């Protein structure tokens, strides 16, 4: 390992480990990692496919030092500002290569799972990240690890065979997550000396974020919309701020740090207990590659009328903890969205946390239809949250996206359902009433008429799924 520049905390360089090399770069904190890798370091195994996180060709591993060692996650380098890699370990395909093919590479070769080869390094990194990551090592999880990667040649079938091969081979032999690096080095998945590269990172005092920089959380939308805006820097990368991270239960509330990546929600026992089925819904929303960066608050502030998490949080009646120069305030999510892409957030204000009541017996359901079933932006999405007390529906929250300029809480329909039994006539009336609250427009995701009627069908679907006997008519679907 070679230290190319010495640095002291507080100067304007960004310090990180790139494969086995310590880097201190004066490059702009707003430059995306992909450009830095390809242009400044000629690490051209990381490919540019879309610059919007939708293809995975630029996948790299991002290692974060912690008390239990370095934790690695796959990220899309096209949407990752350099500010977010400070004091971390970046591993590209070149950093995985060694004298012979790794078992991941060999499985892909053996199954003929690469044709043109352009997407292949991304798949190799994704599968390596899976073996290195938090998930149980099995074939199913190996497939999930590749879901953020697009291959246009193979039809994925051979990649699935390769992933199964890896799941089978490593399924029973690997230590628990967090302790796998020596075993993976032994197996040749990681190159010799992989664990030595990060030696210095944990001991270094992180540089505090610059004051007045543009605020970026996961960046998975901001860097799609206008990456150039961030080039001049400075940047305030929220993932440097421990106070904004983590999931806890406080006084009966589930409380999510604003900059918590959505993958953490999916894996959180507290969240899963409080919102039944959420792990399945979050898988529909985005790929694991994106979930490793995309944050809950980012989804809210982005204010997309079709934001999946916004829709879920509206139904859950979540509350935002907001801080600013004028102090702190709380605001229900249902009051947050004012107009198209306009939210109740004043200059200098920041969402710090998102909370909702951990209601016992909560029933929750989420529906989404898009052109591609997984990992697509919805034509329409909708969520329903309620409790059943004495056979009557209480605390009803119904929301829908893609049907208005903002993520929509269906206040009248929700109120109309309050205190009613889950019966067909009640549902029929709710579906009709919802129709008058929806105001979709024609766009690339569908015509207004379609979206209105689809939303009504999906609202009906909530009740069929939650009450299969009384609403679904029982029997087979």
């Amino acid at each position, binding site marked *: 390992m070679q230290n190319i520049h010495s640095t002291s905390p507080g100067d304007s360089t960004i310090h990180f480990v790139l494969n086995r090399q310590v880097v201190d770069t004066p490059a702009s904190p707003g430059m995306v990692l992909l450009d830095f890798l390809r242009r400044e370091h000629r690490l051209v*195994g990381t490919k*540019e496919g879309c*610059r919007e996180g939708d293809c995975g060709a630029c996948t790299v591993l991002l290692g974060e030092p912690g008390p239990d060692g370095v934790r690695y996650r796959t990220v899309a380098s096209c949407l990752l500002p350099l500010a977010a890699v400070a004091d971390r370990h970046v591993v590209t395909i070149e950093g995985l290569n060694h004298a012979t093919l790794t078992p991941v590479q060999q499985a892909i070769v053996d199954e003929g799972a*690469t*044709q043109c080869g352009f997407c292949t390094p991304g798949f190799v990194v994704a599968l390596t990240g899976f073996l290195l990551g938090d998930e149980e090592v099995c074939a199913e999880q190996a497939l999930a690890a590749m879901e953020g990667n697009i291959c246009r040649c*193979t039809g*994925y*079938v*051979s990649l699935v065979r390769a992933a199964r091969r890896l799941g089978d081979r490593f399924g029973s032999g690997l230590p628990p997550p967090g302790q796998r690096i020596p075993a993976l080095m032994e197996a040749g998945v990681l190159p010799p000396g992989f664990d030595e590269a990060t030696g210095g990172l944990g001991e270094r005092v992180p540089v505090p974020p610059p004051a007045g920089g543009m605020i970026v959380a996961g960046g998975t939308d901001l860097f799609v919309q206008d990456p150039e805006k961030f080039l001049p820097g400075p940047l305030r990368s929220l993932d440097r701020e421990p106070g904004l991270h983590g999931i806890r239960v406080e006084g009966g509330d589930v409380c999510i740090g604003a900059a918590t990546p959505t993958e953490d929600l999916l894996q959180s026992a507290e969240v899963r207990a409080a919102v039944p089925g959420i792990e399945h819904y979050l898988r529909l929303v985005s790929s694991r590659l994106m979930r490793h960066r995309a944050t809950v608050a980012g989804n809210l502030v982005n204010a997309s009328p079709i934001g999946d998490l916004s829709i879920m949080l509206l139904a859950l009646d979540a509350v935002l903890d907001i801080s600013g120069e004028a102090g702190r305030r709380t605001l229900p999510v249902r009051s947050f969205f004012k107009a198209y892409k306009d939210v109740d957030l004043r200059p200098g204000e920041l969402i710090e946390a998102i909370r909702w009541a951990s209601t016992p017996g909560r029933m929750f359901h989420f529906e989404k239809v898009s052109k591609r079933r997984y990992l697509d932006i919805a034509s329409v999405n909708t969520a329903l949250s309620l409790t059943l007390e004495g056979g009557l529906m209480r605390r009803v929250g119904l929301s829908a996206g893609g049907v208005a300029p903002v993520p929509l809480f269906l206040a009248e329909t929700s109120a109309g359902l309050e205190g009613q039994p889950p019966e067909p006539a009640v549902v029929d009336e709710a579906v009709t009433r919802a129709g008058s609250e929806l105001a979709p427009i024609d766009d690339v995701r569908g015509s207004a008429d379609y979206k209105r009627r689809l939303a009504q069908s999906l609202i009906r679907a909530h009740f069929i799924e939650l009450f299969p006997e009384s609403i679904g008519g029982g029997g*087979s679907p």
Partner: protein
Amino acid sequence: MKNFDTPGHTRGSSPFIDDLPELPGTLHGVAVPSPVAHGILRDLDLSAALVTDGVVRVLTAGNVPGENQIGGIIPDEPLLAEGEVHFVGQPVALVVADSPLAARRAAKKVRVDVEELPPLFDPREAAARGMFIAPPRRLVLGDPDLAWPGCEVVVEGRADTGGQEHLYLEMQGAVAVPEARGRMVVHSSTQAPTAVQRAVAGVLGWAMNRVEVNVPRLGGAFGGKEDQANAWAALAALAAAELDRPVKVVLQRHEDLRMTGKRHPYSADFKIGLSRDLRIQAYEVTLYQNSGAAADLSTAVLERSLFHATNSYYIPHVRVTGMCCRTHLPPFTAFRGFGGPQAMFVMEAAIARAAEALGVPAWRIQDRNLLRDQDELPCGMRVHQSQARRSFDEVRERFNFEGVRSDIDRFNAEHRRQKQGLSLMPVCFGISFTNTMLNQAGALVHVYTDGSASVSTGAVEMGQGVNTKILRIVARTLGLDEGCVHMEHTNTTRVANTSPTAASSGADLNGMAALLAAQTLRERLQAVAGELLGVSAASVEMCHGQVLAEGASRELSWAGLVETAYQRRINLSAQALYATPHLQYDKQQEKGTPFAYHVFGTAMTRVTVDCLRGTYTVDAVQAVHDAGRSLDPLIDRGQAEGGIVQGIGWMTMEDLVYDAAGHLRSNALSTYKVPDLHAVPGMLEVAFLEDADNPRAVMRSKAIGEPPFMYGIGTYFALLQALQAFRPDRPAFFEAPMTPERVFRFLHDPSGTDG
């Protein structure tokens, strides 16, 4: 053996155009797109762009020293717009700067002043106004007009298919490097090195011998880099010649999506007549091809549509009319299947409509009309070694068609809000360029004094494994281990006058050329060995780098033989040309033999529709495919699987959306969705026909690239069947892609046909 490129791919060490090390002083070009679909180009205000940091020059049509023209078949496509603009995204200028970022910033500052003219996007409307790229064409077999009265049932209808974005993962790009003595080396991501060479030479006003085109490999192409690579290479070369510096033009995804051509959308009217015993007696179809703003390859694509209008069926009376309709969209271009899929979709739609009218399942009509040997096709060619029947029967037997049918009937009876559908999709696809001239390929094989060999051909490697197949052919012919043979990059100075690597013919043509060149070398070396060993040359064999004579091993290695041959001044290089024999086509009569042979196969597709939500899953696609004697089953399997999934994408989620002004709205990966891992059929199986043979291609193999794509059409018809299980009151509709919106409308609209 595995594709020899794959270890490098997995290590990220296979370079693509944008990965090549940049020479010092390299500049970057970014094209300025036309903001409107149709209009008179009044003025280009370059002043703000020119003073942008890092900008070196902005080039417009006036800077073209040669011909401002890159049209391949018909010269109707200027490199940079001049006088008029004809589609949104048409390049009007090229900004050259010292970084891609600077060039992109400046490109946004070019003010394009266009006096707008009314645009036209609908091919039928274009046809009504006589706006054709070329005169309409018609193929006739028998006489449908005489046949209609004798038919038991005659039905008519309309069928439409949408376009398709290639979404090759590597974007279009080229690097042009000026050399001394007025040469230009162009590294290009192209399927057609000679087309790029011709375009660059034409634009510069140079002879072709001063332009060298080099193609390392492509990160996917699928037809999208057959003609559409020319513009970016020519723009890079134009700037490189003007500025005498290396210039790189590599598109970003959103630019590539907006500016480059895609699969042609088609609209068609059909009429089909059947006898009581389900034999198709007559078929008439009119194809309106949306060609876009320039010819590109449209006329050739249409020709293949005409040749495949009856898919895998014998129909005695056929009239097929096709029109290339000029519209104000980016020129549509080659895409896997090349017009074949669009025509086959119409044929299957006609069968579905007839089945509905007759109250029989479509597969019974398919079954009744499959091509047999000696059946005459509308183009006049007679079918040879048809595998239509075998594949159709084998797929049903192997994958339990009858059992699945009854399972689905039971499922549909038991489920109210979910319905399943099942389809069979036979495919017959002709192999050869329909333009007979293109069915030629050159190869150059060198044997070096250490015994190692290198091979150059006109084939471009884009993941289809063509170079691995060629390497294998040469190694087998020379009796060498595959590790002793090296495939060179495709380069116009080693192999000239290349046909595009397209039409599934890359391995057929270039493999055969390489075989011929290797055979020449083998014969020369056999003669030397015969003299050395005192045996007849004919009795000499070479195997694993050893020389055998009269069946026995001799004390002579391949390397020793080569060394002796060199000392005796024997030519250790051989060049060969292969031209597919027996091809001819008379465009006046519209009769001939356009194809060397046909590829056959049948796919069975099973789907489930969620009728409440209007969503669906493709549960299984199982195919029996005729690969001849496969040169490499692993590679061919990959081609089949990839083709099927791409075909499903075309039929389902891949939805090109333009707004009323001709701007592409599905202009990013977030709005144009291609199949992801979750979209793959739950079960996807491809079985190759056993004991298949093909005397008409190299080593008795068959072309594989395109035919499996068309199995994807079966997904549409399986979905249709499921939809009608929910809505038996509604007639079928034929408008692909089958998006969730179309599904929902069919399921839940009160009545009438889908609009």
